[in-house]
């Protein structure tokens, strides 16, 4: 995009010196536009029409169309809405696009997945008799309006059923949230319920008036009929659904912001990984060569500083105190490694917010880890923590000297008892297994309080 205007500017300056070539400037501008069209054309050549992930109100069809046509997305949206109002087929086309266009960055469409959704297809087939009944009733009543809207509405409904059943997690969440928001419209406080009823009344009246004007022609001038009718229908729809749309748009904005934040964080994690973690791994391997270690550490420090001075926030992970089981385990890992120079390898499965029992478990586990680091002589300690629905267990294992459980020295006995005692006070258990020459494993376990997540 930038290449075009820049090129033009250079040419423009050159043209200043040669008035005879002024015409070329305009030619060049045309060429520029053609060039830009060409860009889109090429884009069209290998990029399929896709639904936009970032630029979406409902399914991202307008955003995708806008990107492909090189038009402003608002214009595309307005055209789509008008198309939808003039004939119900607009809505149907939109839903079908939702089904059959892949979302950005994916090749699979929801429609492809829907093919194997036998139950969904059954529901859709069940809609056909409903359509037939509606059309029969409409033709009996001479209500052309109903019969012209019935088919597209049912196609849309069928499409939405398939989308709702087969969409990705996040699109499904979006659908569920919008339906929830719609249901909540009338059921908040008394005052909002009253205003809801008022709004409902006004909306329905406006809508009905619009339908009446279009279909029956109460106005004498025929050209006014569709205009006034459409305006009334639009006004009715806005009064009825406006707050809902507003809430949806707000949700979308929040969701977009959250995704941008998450992407930023992932990007930062990747950078930290590429530099810091790699260097740390190298330092661990070169532990026998102090000079090498110092060199690596200095280089890494320089790199990290220059990165931080670029103005990027250093990130918040790890900044808060341990509020969850896994954060607590990480804290033990860090502290024991720093204090005793022993590698601690922790694996956590599942997670839970900390309560008194889990804090006791972590304290006992820390003591067992420090023990292993101090006494076993092993250069690494493994911690394994698993949070299950009914209980949380923690295993601390070393491959060090081990000891004979029957002939434990006095101080060891004390440590073992303090671990056991702490666990028992909180309704848990502690089992210490040790084989001389093979190492020690401490198994701690507490039941989880019922009613806690």
């Amino acid at each position, binding site marked *: 995009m930038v290449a075009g205007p820049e090129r033009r500017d250079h040419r423009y300056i050159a043209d200043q010196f040669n008035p005879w070539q002024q015409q070329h400037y305009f030619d060049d501008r045309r060429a520029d536009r053609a060039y830009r069209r060409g860009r889109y054309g090429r884009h069209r050549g290998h990029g399929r029409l896709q639904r936009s992930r970032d630029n979406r109100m409902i399914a991202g069809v307008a955003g995708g169309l806008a990107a492909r046509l090189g038009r402003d997305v608002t214009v595309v949206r307005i055209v789509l809405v008008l198309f939808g109002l003039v004939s119900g087929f607009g809505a149907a086309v939109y839903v079908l696009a939702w089904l059959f266009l892949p979302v950005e960055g994916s090749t699979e469409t929801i429609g492809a997945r829907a093919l194997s959704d036998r139950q969904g297809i059954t529901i859709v087939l069940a809609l056909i008799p409903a359509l037939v009944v509606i059309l029969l009733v409409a033709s009996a009543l001479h209500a052309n309006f109903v019969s012209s809207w019935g088919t597209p509405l049912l196609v849309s409904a069928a499409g939405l059923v398939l989308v709702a059943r087969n969409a990705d997690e996040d699109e499904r969440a979006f659908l569920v949230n919008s339906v929830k928001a719609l249901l909540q419209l009338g059921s908040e406080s008394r005052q909002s319920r009253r205003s809801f009823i008022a709004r409902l009344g006004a909306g329905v009246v406006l809508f009905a008036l619009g339908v009446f004007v279009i279909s029956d022609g109460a106005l004498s001038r025929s050209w006014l009929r569709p205009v006034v009718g459409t305006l009334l229908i639009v006004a009715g729809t806005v009064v009825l659904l406006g707050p809902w749309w507003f809430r949806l748009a707000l949700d979308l904005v929040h969701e977009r912001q959250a995704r941008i934040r998450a992407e930023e964080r992932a990007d930062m994690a990747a950078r930290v990984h590429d530099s810091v973690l790699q260097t740390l791994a190298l330092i661990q391997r070169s532990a026998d060569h102090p000079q090498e270690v110092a060199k690596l550490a200095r280089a890494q420090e320089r790199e990290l500083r220059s990165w931080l001075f670029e103005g990027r926030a250093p990130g918040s992970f790890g900044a808060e105190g341990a509020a969850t089981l896994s954060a607590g385990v990480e804290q033990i890992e860090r502290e024991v490694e720093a204090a005793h120079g022993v590698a601690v390898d922790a694996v956590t499965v599942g997670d839970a917010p900390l309560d008194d029992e889990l804090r006791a478990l972590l304290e006992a586990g820390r003591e067992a880890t420090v023990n292993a680091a101090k006494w076993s002589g092993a250069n690494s300690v493994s911690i*394994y923590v698993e949070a299950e629905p009914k209980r949380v267990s923690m295993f601390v294992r070393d491959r060090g000297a081990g000891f004979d459980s029957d002939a434990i020295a006095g101080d060891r006995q004390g440590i073992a008892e303090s671990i056991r005692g702490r666990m028992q006070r909180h309704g848990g258990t502690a089992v210490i297994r040790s084989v001389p020459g093979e190492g020690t494993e401490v198994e701690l376990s507490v039941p989880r309080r019922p009613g806690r997540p």
Partner: protein
Amino acid sequence: MTPTGVPTVFLVDDHHLFRAGVRSELGDAVDVVGEADEVPAAIELISERLPDVVLLDVHMPGGGGKAVIEAIKPAYPGVKFLALSVSDAPEDVIGVIRAGARGYVTKTISGPELIDAVLRVAGGDAVFSSRLAGFVLDAFASMPTDVEPLGPFDPELDQLSPREREVLRLIARGYTYKEIARELTISIKTVESHVSAVLRKLQLSTRHQLTRWATERRLI
């Protein structure tokens, strides 16, 4: 295999210091037939030299280890991959395993353990580090009693057997295969077959939860 019976190994990592370190640690136990520091070069050289085992970094510019596996695996199914990474990001690890790696070990692994892992992969077994075992337990644990499965649920692929769970737990606790065999009074071969079965499930399960779990973990 070389005539002397040691497996041939190819190294892919974008840090040359690290490659040099691994090379010296592997020593004579294997025959290092080449190395590469980027994805396209790795793909070209591996398809030319066809090593027994490719030791590869998960994180690299140009698609990472996953891209290498995806390019080589279909054409040369005989080449086996062992992922070696400092990355503890579960979605990276699970991604490279699902692409077809036979195992994952962290870069802080000791020399003898690394040799053992390479020989194991060369012999057709799977290699699980304690961390990978934890990831797998985590991914398969949040299931399936309380959550209604989305899409078709295949108990054969989408669930770990109690025995497999037990074996994984012991790996996560830092046990070696030998110690697991002793603990559960089964043979080492049986332990290996359990681990291979888990690897297969991890690669073939289409469960939505597996991907959702990985994305959720990334956002912590």
